[in-house]
């Protein structure tokens, strides 16, 4: 069993909870349940995403998984993955609330089966209903500023634009769009969800001033998921501290960092 590793001391609030980790981690695609458990622990993540799928009669396979997740003692964020309409997503959210005992929901309504791009119209429609019903909605959306505005208009306090397509590992397709959303909504919790492939992508997200990163494949599909989980933990902390520290201004010329006064051998051969 891998021990929990130390937290950075950085805290933030989301959905009424105060957390130390800004990583939201997925629970799918790991080589084994034990590997998933170790990776989640080592990542330091305090939010884990889960899902609902059809269960066959007499089947208890979900029990083992759910028992592992419960034993971690961290927040559970059920998703509505597989929904193609607001109605399907709303029903899935209702079912998730009963099974998982949480009003948090990662709202995911897919509009295109090829690139799994979210359907902005159905997502906004579902978000409006679920917020009125008391859900804390974590909507998965594109990096479109106007869609983010619509989600904020219906009461979303959290918005989760994609970095790039789910499971692609391509990183941030449009950092400028993500920056525009950050500037427009300083009061909202912004999390990049999907498309992260490498720890440096997560660092980049945090350097843009985002509040967190949600990822799954980048850790679960690594050669060594547990080691990669550790890498993401540090990458996210590095990016956040970098953002908070204020980066230096870029310059168009070279500027020595070592003092020039007292430079040895200066003009020695003149």
């Amino acid at each position: 069993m891998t021990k929990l590793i130390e937290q950075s001391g950085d805290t933030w609030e989301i959905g009424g909870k105060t957390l130390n980790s800004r990583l939201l981690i997925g629970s799918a695609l790991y080589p084994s349940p034990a590997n998933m458990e170790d990776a989640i622990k080592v990542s330091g993540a305090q939010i884990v995403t889960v899902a609902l799928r059809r269960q066959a009669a007499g089947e208890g396979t979900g029990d083992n998984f759910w028992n592992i997740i419960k034993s971690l003692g961290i927040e559970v964020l059920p998703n509505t993955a597989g929904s193609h309409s607001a109605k399907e997503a709303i029903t899935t959210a209702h079912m998730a609330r009963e099974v998982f005992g949480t009003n948090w929901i990662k709202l995911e309504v897919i509009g295109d089966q090829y690139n799994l791009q979210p359907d902005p119209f159905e997502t906004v429609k579902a978000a409006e209903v679920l917020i009125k019903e008391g859900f804390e909605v974590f909507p998965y959306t594109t990096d479109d500023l106007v869609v983010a505005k619509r989600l904020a208009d219906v009461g979303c306090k959290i918005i989760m634009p994609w970095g790039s397509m789910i499971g692609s590992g391509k990183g941030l397709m449009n950092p400028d769009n993500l920056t525009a959303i950050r500037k427009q909504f300083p009061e909202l919790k912004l999390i990049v969800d999907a498309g992260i492939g490498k720890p440096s992508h997560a660092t980049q997200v945090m350097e843009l001033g985002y509040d967190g990163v949600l990822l799954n494949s980048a850790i679960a599909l690594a050669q060594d998921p547990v080691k990669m989980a550790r890498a993401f933990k540090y990458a996210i902390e590095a990016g956040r501290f970098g953002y908070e520290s204020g980066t230096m201004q870029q310059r168009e010329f070279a500027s020595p960092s070592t003092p020039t006064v007292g430079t040895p051998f200066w003009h020695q051969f003149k």
Partner: protein
Amino acid sequence: MIEVIVNGIRTEVSSEMNVKEMIKELKYKQKGFALALNGTFVAVSTYETTIIHDNDSLEILAPVQGG
């Protein structure tokens, strides 16, 4: 006999009955899942008062890994 659609599969059951009885007849465990009837969530608290009719569609979902 009536027919209901359980997780997309057409299934014969003995008669119309409430959700609690249907779960037993279909040999599902009594907990650890959530249920929707014709696309609408049915809360556990209403299992005994919700009647399932011929050609109704049931979704029975349980926790799995997710991203």
